């Protein structure tokens, strides 16, 4: 059974204080790893897809990296508007090629 574990559950940062969120996964074969951002009362908003170990993607203050067992979402010099829940999800090549299996998310709070 696919498993996705995110840590920490919650993270509080000061504005400008860089940090990383972790997503560890167990799948029979990784077809893709997805990062989403979710604001309160809204649906998940797509950020990145990573497909193979060593791959990196960047968007503004966010950078996602992937290894064979985990992914990191690095946040550089965060701003209060980066506060949200960040969700990680995987698609397992051993099962369907469309079903997202999500972790519970990391609640990020950035204080001004």
């Amino acid at each position, binding site marked *: 059974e696919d498993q*996705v574990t995110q840590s920490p559950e919650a993270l509080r940062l000061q504005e400008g204080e860089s940090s990383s969120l972790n997503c560890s996964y167990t799948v029979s074969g990784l*077809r*893709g790893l*997805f990062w*989403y951002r979710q604001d309160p*009362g*809204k*649906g*998940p*908003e*797509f950020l990145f*897809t990573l*497909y193979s170990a060593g791959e990196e993607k960047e968007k503004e203050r966010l950078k996602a990296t992937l290894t064979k067992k985990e992914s990191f979402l690095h946040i550089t010099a965060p701003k209060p508007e980066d506060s949200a829940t960040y*969700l990680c*999800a995987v*698609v397992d090549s051993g099962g*369907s*090629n*469309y*079903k*997202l*299996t*999500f*972790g*519970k*998310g990391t609640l990020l709070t950035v204080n001004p």
Partner: protein
Amino acid sequence: GAGVSQSPRYKVAKRGQDVALRCDPISGHVSLFWYQQALGQGPEFLTYFQNEAQLDKSGLPSDRFFAERPEGSVSTLKIQRTQQEDSAVYLCASSLGGGNTDTQYFGPGTRLTVL
């Protein structure tokens, strides 16, 4: 362009009532998904449509849950005889192609509260 829309945004039902939740996917998107998100949890897969065909309903929790997409566009998730444990946010997502890890774009969700 317009994203995925869902209605209603909020629904309160008495235990035992039937409810219907609507999803309008992004125009032209072949694939449509329903997920259930409990408070403090990540979304969990319910069912998948490719055009009008329901290819996977393995995540539906019970036979009280039924989904349809008769014309390959709008979809409805119906829950019969609602129970308190059905209280959750129901998310709809669509993607352009028929799988292959196409990006899934989510709607705002419908928050269902069963009293």
